[in-house]
């Protein structure tokens, strides 16, 4: 069972009505609801990665998201922990043009490090298969 506070430990009445927070000027995103596990597509609509995490950094006294992270999270989600920092692939936030059902980038996927495994397989495996270097007829 996922962690929770027992009923007797909860410090506030559950049906309490809370005041509305100050309304920020820009677009509001809840990270888990709107970003995590979303498909990232490049400028042509080709899938590039999945948003597995987000890198945060302090700048001028504000904490801002700088990169979308994608990496080998399957095992860590099942068994706990998180991948080492060196295994994350980063997509800089400045490439993001739209956050909706998918996260859309303004660059082509081939220019991003996140697709290096696909590029490597294309060059070293698929490219050596007879017929692997041209479109199917």
């Amino acid at each position, binding site marked *: 069972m996922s962690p*929770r506070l027992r009923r007797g430990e909860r410090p*506030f009445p559950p*049906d309490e009505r809370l005041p509305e*927070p100050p309304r920020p000027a820009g677009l*509001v995103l809840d990270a888990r*609801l709107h970003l995590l596990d979303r498909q990232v597509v490049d400028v042509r609509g080709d899938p590039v990665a999945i948003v597995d995490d*987000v890198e945060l950094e302090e700048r001028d006294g504000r*904490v801002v998201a700088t990169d979308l992270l994608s990496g080998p999270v399957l095992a860590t989600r099942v068994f706990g922990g998180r991948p080492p920092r060196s295994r994350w692939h980063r997509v800089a936030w400045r490439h993001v043009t739209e956050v909706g059902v998918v996260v859309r980038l303004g660059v082509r996927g081939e220019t991003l490090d996140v697709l290096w495994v696909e590029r490597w397989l294309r060059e070293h495996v698929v490219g050596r298969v007879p017929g692997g270097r041209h479109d199917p007829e």
Partner: protein
Amino acid sequence: MILSDLLDARVHDAAGRALGFVVDVRLVLDGPPDGVLAPPRLHGLLVSPRTGTSFLGYERTDENAPAVLARWFRRRHRGTFLVLWDDVAASGTDEGPGVVLRDGYRRWDPALPPHRGA
């Protein structure tokens, strides 16, 4: 710091009283653009007495269909509140103390502003 350092972390007030868990992180795109969009600024943390199933977000939107699920998830996440990042005194990783709020922090309604379309 990455987002996972915050998500599911235990939240305590300055007196050490357990308040719940970070179920989501609210970001706001309100700064100068970096590329096409502004970089998301960490605006606050959504704290709930429970952690599971919170990603569906029924407690934060006016979504009410399917009605049975909407009612069920809203009921499960009663007591969820938003606390602004300025009210966070310390945030640690899994091995640390979790998130500690400063004395005199304020709790806000966790509902998302209605104009959000994603």
